[in-house]
């Protein structure tokens, strides 16, 4: 087993990994930027080392520094979490050279699946269905224009090196292509350090369905069924659930087989996710492999009972997969809502600042994966994810209602969050009916900010505000008279006219 694990990440995922290590009795080493000294992951780990200034390139993306810290402090493995260096082939190759176990796929497989263009090529050869689009990287605007004409508008710009919606844009017509490519390249460069982008046919009203896969170092591969992640804003997931309402047993078996074939074709090991788009005629297209633990992994853990982070650590330490495909079952239904520091009334603009107070939801079937606490700061430098609420119940309807309850008991004060918005998504009749396509938010939630004008509990909020103000005024008055007597009260007894 591994001796000490360095967690090259921050926020809720660093906390999640640290907890898994603790349960496995493996010492943990956190790294942090100067903006994160008081972050939760630093408090939770056994050891913590500062690795640089707040900008990611100087800290959480600083490969040399992280490797040096790992060696100095005797960490024999690194867990990269998601984002940052999780899908960076150079980093995983460097770990291999330095004799440090990278808890993730081997660098060759990572490079293949991480390069979305190369993986499309490989998967086409293996007869995996893919979305029509560019098969090679391009840099000249002219070549993008030609490719877009050939594919046919609308087209989608995607970052070759990454996911998470960064660099991704829908281009409805030729006039918007140039601007979109430029912005996509800048975002890709800043998020992944690689500016390459490519174009793909944009499939309208699809569902996003992905399969969780585990593969050991000996060629054993199992899948842990699907997750549907169609509710997205800015092409980034915000609600996920499993099982998918759109997938029946027949389709599930078929897609699961394709997912494991993808993993075998790429000689991929450790945990990974094979993403598909599912169109309304039940055709599915391979999108990409997410070569990391994903934000939404908890829903799979709740329905299958498998701890994916522990599996990652076991596989990385060289253990054989003990799971067999026929032994993995889906039990009940799980939903995840991502709590971001964003303003849903203002186009999901990020909202940094201090969390003045927080109270987390709890109860049967409620899980809360969290990177914040009352009094913590949300820095401007990083992805604004704060936490995730995950509910499990026997049926989808029960899980949905449980989520509404959990969100109504979740308090985060001082910054804007997605809590109220997500609660409205959960309560929406179209969500309840399972009509979840990737344009759900545009289609069903676009008037949400306006509808809030006549919002619930306005009277109660105003009453609470008045009571608080009144109490404060009274306390202040009594404090003045009792504790800080003014000069006229302290001069003693007045005497008039006589000396």
């Amino acid at each position, binding site marked *: 087993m591994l001796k000490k694990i360095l967690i090259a990440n921050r926020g809720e995922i660093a906390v999640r990994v640290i907890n898994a290590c603790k349960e496995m009795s493996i010492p943990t080493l956190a790294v942090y930027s100067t903006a994160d000294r008081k972050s939760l992951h630093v408090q939770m780990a056994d050891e913590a080392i500062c690795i640089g200034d707040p900008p990611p390139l100087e800290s959480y993306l600083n490969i040399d520094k992280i490797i040096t810290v790992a060696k100095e402090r005797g960490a024999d493995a690194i867990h990269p979490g998601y984002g940052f260096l999780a899908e960076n082939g150079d980093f995983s190759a460097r770990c291999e050279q330095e004799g440090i176990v990278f808890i993730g796929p081997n660098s060759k497989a990572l490079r293949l699946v991480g390069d979305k263009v190369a993986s499309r090529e490989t998967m086409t050869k293996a007869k995996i269905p893919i979305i029509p689009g560019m098969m090679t990287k391009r840099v000249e605007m002219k070549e993008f224009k030609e490719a877009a004409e050939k594919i046919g508008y609308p087209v989608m710009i995607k970052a070759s090196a990454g996911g998470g919606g960064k660099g991704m844009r829908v281009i409805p017509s030729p006039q918007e292509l140039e601007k979109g490519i430029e912005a996509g390249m800048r975002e890709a460069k800043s998020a992944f350090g690689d500016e390459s982008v490519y174009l793909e046919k944009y499939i309208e009203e699809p569902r996003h369905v992905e399969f969780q896969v585990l593969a050991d170092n000996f060629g054993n591969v199992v899948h842990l069924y699907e997750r549907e992640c169609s509710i997205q804003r800015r092409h980034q997931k915000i609600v996920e659930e499993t099982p998918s309402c759109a997938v029946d047993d027949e389709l599930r078996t078929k897609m699961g087989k394709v997912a494991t074939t993808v993993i075998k074709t790429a000689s991929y090991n450790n945990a990974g996710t094979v993403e598909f788009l599912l169109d309304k005629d039940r055709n599915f297209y391979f999108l990409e492999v997410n070569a990391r633990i994903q934000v939404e992994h908890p829903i799979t853990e709740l329905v299958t009972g498998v701890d994916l982070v522990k599996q990652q650590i076991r596989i990385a330490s060289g253990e054989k997969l003990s799971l067999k495909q026929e032994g993995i079952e889906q039990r009940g239904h799980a939903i995840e809502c991502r709590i971001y520091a964003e303003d849903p009334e203002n186009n999901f603009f990020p909202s940094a600042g201090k969390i003045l107070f927080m109270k987390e939801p709890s109860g049967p079937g409620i899980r809360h994966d969290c990177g914040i606490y009352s009094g913590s700061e949300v820095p401007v430098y990083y992805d604004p994810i704060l936490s995730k609420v995950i509910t499990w119940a026997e049926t989808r309807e029960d899980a949905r209602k449980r989520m509404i309850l959990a969100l109504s008991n979740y308090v985060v004060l001082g910054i804007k969050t997605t809590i109220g918005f997500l609660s409205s998504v959960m309560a929406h009749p179209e969500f309840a009916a399972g009509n979840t396509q990737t344009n759900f938010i545009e289609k069903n939630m676009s008037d949400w900010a306006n509808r809030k004008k006549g919002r619930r509990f306005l*009277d109660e909020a105003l009453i609470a*505000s008045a009571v608080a103000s009144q109490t404060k005024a009274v306390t202040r008055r009594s404090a003045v008279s009792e504790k800080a007597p003014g000069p006229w009260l302290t001069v003693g007894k007045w005497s008039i006219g006589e000396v």
Partner: protein
Amino acid sequence: MEFEFSIEEQTYKLQVDHKDGKYLIKRDGKEFNVDSQPISENCLSLLVDGKAYTVFIAENQGKKYISVQGEQFCIEEAKADSGARSLAESAALKGVPTIASPMPGKVVKILVAEGDRVKKGQGLVIVEAMKMENEIKSGSGAVVKKINFKEGDLVDAAVPIIELELEEEK
């Protein structure tokens, strides 16, 4: 006591009478009998005409952040005109529309030049904050009067990046 609160520029007046540990609160012709018990520094238990609400509350820089059953509010005490105004506020008062980022970020691209005529909805500047690019658009037809920053500059929230002059409505 009387209170005037504002939520997102809308004001609300409340009349509060405190008697025998209970509150009688009037707003908009409605009356509420309120029993309030502090549970902790950030929590009140309200019984409003017998209906129970657990309300969470925190204050920072004159703003009250309140959460009632998952609904969040940011409430400010409406106060008389104060002397000190921020740059953005004074610009807005003078009738000069400005373009500012809602939070600290980096100016990645300026899409217009001084003197340019812009249409409503036209992109003016791209600001990157928390790893996402956000294009800030013009709210109306206007002429770009002044650009206060250049590409690569860091900007604070609510500081005008671009000043506009509105076009006459025709």
